[in-house]
């Protein structure tokens, strides 16, 4: 049984075909990156997988079950977490509260218990807090724990987004341009974390990325997209040398 695969996926918005017949498979435990020039449809694919947009063609299979037609929250309950290209954190809450939301799918208490705050709820809350502290330790967010997200710098917020996704204890992590807006040091840290996530936490990572050095460093396999279509797949080196990829990014050589 394939861990995660996408078959003939496509979506069109009116006359615009954003994703056209894309198929790929992600194996458990690997870091799989999707690259492509702007407008190639990378984030659209993420939104299709996250079921924010409904696909008009093809299917998405995760551990043997089809994801098409489910609600976004069901996807999270199945163990797929994602980050967003334009950070979608909860601005008026603390970092801790943001991360605790990530634990939502692990909740075990009913409404009436929560209204009365029974010992069971207290116990559950302590457990959630411990789980979140592990993520905070992993990402070195200790001194931001009680800060409101609204006042924090961009680089920190990207890490918090990552933390929130990790707090859900996913089996598959979708990272949407993890290095966008980060300076070289922060990108370096991000690379370390992605490696740790793969090796230390055993989470499969499906990533969209522009920064080629990051792609080369952490990816096991790469898929190149252009104008909604897949044009090359393989190891980072193979894909980067592929003529179709070069043409998509740089254009073809014009005769002088």
């Amino acid at each position, binding site marked *: 049984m394939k861990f995660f695969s996408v078959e003939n996926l496509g979506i069109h918005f009116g006359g615009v075909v954003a994703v056209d017949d894309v198929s790929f498979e992600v194996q458990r435990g690997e870091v799989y990156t999707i690259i492509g020039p702007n407008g190639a449809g990378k984030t659209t694919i993420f*939104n299709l997988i996250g079921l924010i947009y409904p696909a008009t063609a093809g299917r998405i299979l995760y551990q043997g079950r089809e994801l098409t037609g489910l609600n976004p929250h069901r996807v999270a309950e199945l163990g797929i977490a994602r980050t967003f290209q334009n950070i*979608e954190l909860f601005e008026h809450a603390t970092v801790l509260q943001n991360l605790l939301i990530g634990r939502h799918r692990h909740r075990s208490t009913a409404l009436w218990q929560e209204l009365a705050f029974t010992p069971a709820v207290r116990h559950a809350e302590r457990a959630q807090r411990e789980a979140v502290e592990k993520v905070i330790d992993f990402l070195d967010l200790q001194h931001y724990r009680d800060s409101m997200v609204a006042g924090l710098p961009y680089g920190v917020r990207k890490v918090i987004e990552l933390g929130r996704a990790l707090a859900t204890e996913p089996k598959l992590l979708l990272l949407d341009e993890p290095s966008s807006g980060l300076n070289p040091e922060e990108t370096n840290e991000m690379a370390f974390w992605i490696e740790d996530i793969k090796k230390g936490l055993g989470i499969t990572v499906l990533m969209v990325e522009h920064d080629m050095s990051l792609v080369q460093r952490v990816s096991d396999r790469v898929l190149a997209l252009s104008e909604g279509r897949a044009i090359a797949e393989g190891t980072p080196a193979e894909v980067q040398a592929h003529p179709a990829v070069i043409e998509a990014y740089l254009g073809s050589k014009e005769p002088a």
Partner: protein
Amino acid sequence: MIPITQLLQLLLAGVAQGCVYALVALGFVLIYKATETVNFAQGDLMMLGAFVALTGATVLGLPYWLTIVFAIAVMAVVGMLIEHIVLRPVLGYPAFTVVMITIGAGYVMRGAVTMIPGWGTETYALATPFADRVMRVGGVVVAEQQLAVIGHTALLCLVLYLFFRFTRVGIAMQASSQNQLAAYYMGIPVRRINMLIWGLSAGIATIGGILLAPTTFVHSNMGFIGLKAFPAAVVGGFGSVPGAIVGGLIIGVVEALAGFYMAEGFKDVAAYVVVLLVLMVKPSGIFGETVAKKV
């Protein structure tokens, strides 16, 4: 009266009333398009406009047409002042907060009217040249006032259409409504445009008030009719100028028909039942656009 004549009579009444709703809806759709503010005080602006017209006619003794011009001019200034004093400080606040501020402004207007000597809580009649004159077309009794309402509204729509289609201000308004920061960067004088829009909307509301006055008379609570403008704007498609007109007419006609054919009490809630139905089936209304956020 034979049924078809009855129906036509009702339709005429509905269209005439609908025009008033349309004018109020038009006023706040304009504000909404420019600033994404929903002005819950639009009805009260209408009320205030009617009072100003009343003063122009009685105290200053102006003839009807001059009264209209006078009232529009005064209310345009009032509208601009409201924008400047009340809304500019809250530029950038969440939409709900701004709605509450306009509700507050409505309260102030209603209260202030009672404190002005000569206005107070009395009900007044506004003299118009159309009042009490009727014609008979076929079997239908047509009040000249109704024709006046429809005629004024149509003329206004034409003027506004030309304004938005062929002037830079109209395009600037739309830019400002979608992303204020970007509009600022593009050199659009956002604050001045917002002020002008409010002046324009207040003027349109004034016309609505003057046209409504013969039916409801002028008193401090006449603005509550303006609440029906919200269903009108939703039905037509929020943010759409033709939508406001069409929506207003629809609501007016539905109300007129409900008042006659349905049980007592339905007339008052007809507009709201319609808007609930529209919101459940097609929230964007007839001419509205559906937008979704790109993440």
